[in-house]
């Protein structure tokens, strides 16, 4: 008699649920990427087309979708960055380097890139 965790495994422990949400977030992020690619495509189309697409992105359903997506993206990024020390074992003089040395640069780089994008958007908006 084989006893498995069953298809509802992800409901059985908070740690399972977190992983399930992390994996599910990929679906939302994939849809977001498609929306951005379409946006880039529309930018090269007549202005009316582009405006129509912007209006579509601003409809309440889409706004709700984006709020959920950004929450998922933050969850995915945060949990994924924290997993790096398990994935990479760098040893100096026979000792594993502290996980923080692997985690901190990722958050640092994330902050810098986010800052640059915000500055660029602000600059384009102001210009």
């Amino acid at each position, binding site marked *: *008699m*084989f*006893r*498995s*965790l*069953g298809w509802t*495994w*992800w409901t*059985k*422990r908070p*740690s*399972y649920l977190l*992983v399930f949400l992390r*994996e599910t977030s990929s679906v939302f992020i994939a849809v977001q990427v498609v929306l951005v690619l379409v946006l880039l495509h529309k930018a090269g189309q007549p202005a009316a087309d582009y405006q129509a697409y912007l209006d579509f992105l601003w409809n309440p359903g889409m706004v709700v979708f984006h709020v959920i997506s950004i929450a998922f993206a933050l969850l995915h990024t945060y949990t994924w960055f924290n*997993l790096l020390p*398990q*994935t*990479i*074992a760098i*040893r100096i*003089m*026979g*000792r594993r380097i502290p996980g923080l040395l692997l985690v901190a640069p990722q958050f640092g780089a994330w902050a810098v890139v986010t800052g640059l994008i915000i500055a660029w958007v602000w600059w384009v908006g102001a210009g």
Partner: protein
Amino acid sequence: MSTAIDTMVRFEVFRYQPDWDEPTYQIYDVPYREDWVVLDALNYIKDTIDGSLTYRWSCRMGVCGSCGAMVNGYPKLTCAAFLSEYLPGPIRVEPLVNFNVERDLVTSIDGFMEKLESVQPWIIREDGATDDLKSEYLQTPAQHSAYQQFSMCINCLLCYAACPVSSHSEEFIGPAALALAQRYNLDTRDEGVEQRRDVILKDEGIWECSFVGECSAVCPKHVDPAGAIQQAKMTGAIDYYRRLLMPWTVKS
């Protein structure tokens, strides 16, 4: 010294025999002792209430790896699960999930033994000199520490019972066996990386793992099998691109 308290703890123990269609849960009331672990309670039940209860154990000190069971739904070594952590009860004891149950709390580990053997968890020498007991293969403490954590495994299989992938794919080689493969691949005395390569990289190997990480959370020996698998994935990915982009660097 045992401290007797007038408390009883209720146990709900999974019972199953090969000719039964369905398992049942049997209730036993066991006196509470502060220094008792779940295994002590099972022994108490077997000695004084019901001699037919079947379970495995040996060392009673977290070394042999034979006493694993689900305690209130979590994989635990029953010799390391203190009753005090589960008060006031009831305490439900079931066989490890993701294995076939033979009888009561005893599971069949045949499938695991096959997987373990498939990763060849022993030192392989290209010259085939593994049984030449006269040879010495020196290793520095730093080289030893590279795999030491992964060598602490006691094959208790709690990690398999925590793994949703093992739950849905009986073929998945799984945490402990893959961690041991990584343990030997990282050993400077070993030359068997190529021989283990196909087994580790096949569909049922490291790439089936979706990094749930619960195997490492339940491991009583802090082996971190999830870490071992992710590190093997990293090596596997680098190796893939090396073979693709710089085939001349690959030994045939």
